């Protein structure tokens, strides 16, 4: 063991960093970007679930429950009507709505049962649980407040049998995250493989040969995209089969639609890989785009924290990133069972397709004939 030889290696490593400012900058900048995003995403407490309330109770219990719910930290309540509540639940403006029937007080008095009608959206297990807990607590507190002083009255029983619009009681957090992750995994892996292999074309000098041939830049980009898309199709199918039939992810929608979204994401990743690799000189630098371009996109896509929970300016960023639309589309299909008849889903798919078109053109435009 020679200290001098060891230090020679150390010195060389440091010298390389001195010559590669980009790597050094990445080491210092990337953690700030990623941790900063984490802080922004998770600094606000979870957004309270949004509950619509329709109070038709002819007795006092309904009003007392509404008062208790208004004071709850678990939910934000909105007074609504039956006509409005259904569509709002479908659109995702409400996580659930509570119908307090005309005989709520009467039934409670007669049988000791408090039985409101609870409708849950069913796509977010955490929101559903918060609403159920808030309603139960409010019912018990309201009943206790109305009970004649002096005690003796037996505690009423709260009967909640939530009616789910989508999903259901057995929907797990896995189902909420799993669908979007199908897309994110395909996007991430396809990006890495494409950008590195395109960079190899540059570093091995074969790109120079291609440029010295009658090939048009658009032919190179399209040919590449087509080749990688075919491989990505196989990967997307494998991921889908594994997710749905081995892991058993909840899928309420059309499998082909899920596959279609995966394919759009793969095409976007391929062309993003080609496009960004024109800004890198080595495979090493292409991989460095991952913490700066890919990870923030995943964080901001709404997969972990809903976009609506982000600070306003960050929502603007999320809303221009293609992954956000992919996550939304995958949830719309897999959790809500949406079809192409849904305007929101069409918007998501349109944005993804538009992004693909933009990066294909950008990749062809940035591929310069002057390779060196």
């Amino acid at each position, binding site marked *: 063991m020679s200290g001098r030889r060891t230090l020679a290696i150390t010195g060389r490593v440091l010298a390389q960093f001195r010559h590669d400012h980009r790597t050094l900058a990445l080491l210092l900048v990337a953690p700030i970007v990623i941790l900063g995003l984490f802080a922004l995403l998770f600094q606000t407490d979870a957004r309270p679930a949004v509950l619509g309330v329709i109070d038709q109770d002819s007795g006092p219990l309904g009003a007392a429950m509404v008062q208790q719910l208004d004071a709850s930290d678990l939910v934000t309540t909105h007074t609504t009507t039956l006509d409005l509540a259904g569509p709002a639940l479908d659109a995702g403006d409400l996580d659930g709505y509570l119908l307090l029937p005309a005989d709520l007080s009467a039934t409670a008095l007669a049988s000791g049962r408090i039985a409101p009608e609870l409708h849950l959206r069913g796509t977010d297990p955490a929101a559903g649980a918060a609403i159920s807990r808030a309603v139960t607590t409010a019912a018990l507190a309201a009943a206790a407040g109305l009970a004649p002083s002096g005690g003796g009255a037996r505690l009423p029983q709260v009967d909640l049998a939530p009616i789910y619009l989508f999903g259901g009681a057995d929907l797990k957090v896995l189902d909420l995250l799993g669908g979007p992750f199908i897309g994110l995994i395909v996007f991430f892996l396809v990006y890495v493989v494409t950008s590195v292999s395109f960079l190899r074309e540059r570093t*091995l*000098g*074969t790109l*120079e*040969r*291609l*440029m*010295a*041939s*009658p*090939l*048009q830049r658009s032919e190179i980009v399209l040919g590449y995209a087509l080749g990688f898309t075919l491989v990505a199709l196989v990967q997307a199918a494998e991921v889908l089969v594994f997710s749905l039939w081995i892991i058993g992810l909840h899928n309420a929608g059309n499998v082909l639609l899920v596959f279609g979204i995966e394919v759009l994401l793969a095409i976007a990743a391929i062309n993003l890989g080609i496009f960004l690799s024109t800004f890198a000189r080595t495979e090493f630098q292409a991989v460095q785009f991952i913490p700066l371009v890919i990870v923030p996109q995943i964080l901001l896509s709404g997969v972990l924290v809903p976009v609506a929970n982000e600070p306003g300016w960050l929502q603007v960023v999320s809303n221009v990133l293609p992954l956000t639309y992919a996550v939304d589309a995958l949830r719309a299909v897999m959790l809500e069972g949406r079809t192409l008849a849904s305007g929101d889903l069409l918007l998501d798919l349109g944005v993804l397709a538009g992004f693909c078109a933009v990066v294909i053109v950008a990749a062809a435009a940035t591929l310069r*004939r*002057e*390779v*060196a």
Partner: protein
Amino acid sequence: MAVEAIDVRKRFGSLTALDGVTLRVPGGQIYGLLGPNGAGKTTLIRALIGLLTIDGGQITVLGGRPADSDVLARTGYMTQAPALYGDLTAEENVRFFAAIHGGGDVDAALRLVHLEDRRRSVTATLSGGMQTRLSLACTVVHAPSLLLLDEPTVGVDPQLRVELWGRFRSMAANGTTIIVSSHVMDEAERCDRLGLMLGGRFLAEGSADELRRLAGSERLEDAFLALSQAAS
């Protein structure tokens, strides 16, 4: 003229790579670009194939402009390092380069460089010299009218080098124009005409005999050194 470059200039930042180069090569000629590293040989070749935009001057190649796709379809360019797909077989490499140039005789190209028995070998497993030969096969597979060869025989053993030059000769006899850069003087002897480059310009031009006479030396190597010294 197969190739005509007039007063070509190219700068990379503060470095003048081509400083007013004029070159005329008629069809069927083998033209040798000689000069030390950094003389501008590679830059000139890359300008002729349109891989870099020149800052001044004019270039006409096969009657068109460099980088015109019909010009590129009739040109073969061999880079200094053998730029090949290492994970493809020898034959797959040649087939690919034939396809992007509009087709060619893959078997003939492999035979030319004596790699017909290694056609199924993965390129990365070939020796350095074999890769250089394969690179040449990829360059000539589409039977180009103009060959631009950037130090094509580096790492090739003397026997094969003699043979390759024989092939270049017969291609030239069939009308192929060849511009070849080298700093191997015995190769220079085989060219119809030579240009000695230094510092991005031509010091002298002529046949090997003419250059020797000009410098008053017996050997081409001495002639080149004498001409370089006289210039600086």
